């Protein structure tokens, strides 16, 4: 399905506020100097007129810290020591998602649902099912944007239920799915699209698409043997300035590694999962102290091989959507485009 409407920019806040009555509304909000995705209680808190958020919106589908189960160790309790699932998440709409980040959701979908009941991640999937994704096209992609390298586009619609195109004082609203349609049903604000806006949207899209540099090639990586890439001498120098912090992994829309931890005070506790990062030495360290990836180089290589080689082997796509966050946020300017260029030689 595809349907085009328009909404005045001044009506967006009202639409979001209306939606908060039905479900959780997540949108870019200002927190100090940061633009981050977070829940809004009033539509006016949403900040849509800015470049992309500091961190990816994956937190809305795969929270950094998520309670999985609760338990009690109180001997008096009938269910002492047994795990109880947490309640189902609320319905939500994630508003103002850039197309690259929406493509990131599709990567997460692959990871969290690998087929067969035993490989389905309940927590992710039930949240996903209850989520509507409203996208916002990128009129002015940055020099660090390379979504086009992986088939993406500043106005790509993959993973979106609705796409908004900023045409000045209004947005063209492209309704892409039934879920998207349902969110707008009965709402004041969206109205019949006018030809001028549609035409303008087309022009904006065209110039934005042109402005994204093709970026990086990953075509040769898949054909190379794992060990050929693993033993490539390029790693000996590429990793050198990496500090092994988690900025790249935590800001990435597709990184999905996590840790599971129990936390308890007295007899009441939770089992929860927290984001984890392949950059941390603790990530792979065995209880015995043995560590299969003991050095910075091992961990650096793992991140790039995972994204561009292993993930391709397993899921037939790379685990990168070209959002450019890791390039902009890396404290030591490690540039994924340069690393991949070496890998793809």
């Amino acid at each position: 399905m595809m349907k085009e409407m328009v909404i005045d920019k001044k009506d967006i806040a009202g639409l979001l506020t209306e939606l908060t009555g039905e479900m959780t509304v997540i949108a870019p909000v200002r927190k100090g100097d940061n633009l981050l995705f977070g829940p809004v209680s009033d539509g006016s808190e949403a900040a849509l007129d800015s470049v992309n958020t500091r961190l990816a919106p994956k937190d809305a589908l795969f929270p950094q810290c998520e309670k999985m189960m609760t338990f009690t160790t109180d001997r008096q309790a009938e269910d002492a020591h047994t795990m109880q699932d947490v309640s189902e998440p609320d319905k939500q709409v994630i508003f103002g998602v850039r197309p690259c980040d929406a493509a990131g959701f599709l990567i997460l979908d692959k990871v969290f649902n690998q087929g067969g009941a035993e490989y389905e991640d309940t927590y992710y999937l039930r949240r996903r099912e209850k989520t509507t994704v409203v996208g916002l096209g990128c009129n002015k992609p940055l020099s660090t944007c390379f979504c086009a390298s992986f088939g993406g586009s500043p106005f790509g619609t993959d993973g979106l239920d609705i796409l908004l195109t900023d045409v000045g004082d209004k947005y063209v609203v492209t309704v892409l799915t039934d879920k998207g349609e349902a969110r707008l049903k009965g709402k004041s604000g969206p109205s019949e699209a006018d030809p001028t806006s549609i035409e303008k949207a087309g022009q904006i899209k065209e110039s934005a698409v042109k402005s994204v540099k093709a970026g990086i090639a990953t075509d040769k990586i898949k054909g190379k043997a794992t060990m050929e890439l693993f033993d490539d001498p390029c790693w000996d120098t590429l990793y050198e300035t990496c500090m092994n912090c988690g900025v790249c992994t935590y800001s990435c829309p597709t990184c999905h590694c996590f840790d599971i931890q129990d936390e308890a005070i007295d007899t009441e506790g939770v089992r929860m999962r927290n984001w984890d990062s392949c950059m941390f030495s603790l990530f792979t360290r065995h209880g015995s102290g043995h560590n299969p990836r003991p050095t910075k180089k091992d961990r650096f290589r793992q991140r790039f091989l995972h994204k561009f080689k292993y993930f391709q082997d397993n899921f037939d796509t790379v685990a990168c959507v070209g959002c450019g966050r890791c390039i902009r946020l890396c404290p030591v300017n490690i540039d994924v485009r340069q690393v991949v260029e070496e890998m793809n030689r």
Partner: protein
Amino acid sequence: MAWQPKIVAFLCNWCSYAGADLAGVSRMQYPPNVRVIRIPCSGRMNPKFILSALKNGADGILISGCHPGDRHYLSGNYFARRKFALFRSLLDYMGIEDGRVHFSWVSAAEGERFAEVISEVTEAVRAIGPSRRLNKKVI
């Protein structure tokens, strides 16, 4: 029952712990709110212990060692004093209430003083109420 402060006291083995012992055998009265943890020397006191105790529900902390010049391990308490000075000011700066974390020197001979210190600390903690700022809630 009214709220009773939970206080964790880290006492050095040679002076303050012995002081507590003396207070006990001398049958001196002092508030029962203190849980004692014996450490070999105030120099062993790692500030991590303070925050761990607060995180896990302590309302007040007392760290007590040998008087300077009176110490068992020659200089342990002098080094500790520098660490405590910095840590204390950092906690204050972070907005942790005055009266949450206390330091004292109590010798093995000062049973009476020990009882006084405990009363003082207990009253100070009682006055500021339950600790909430670094007390972890998981659920």
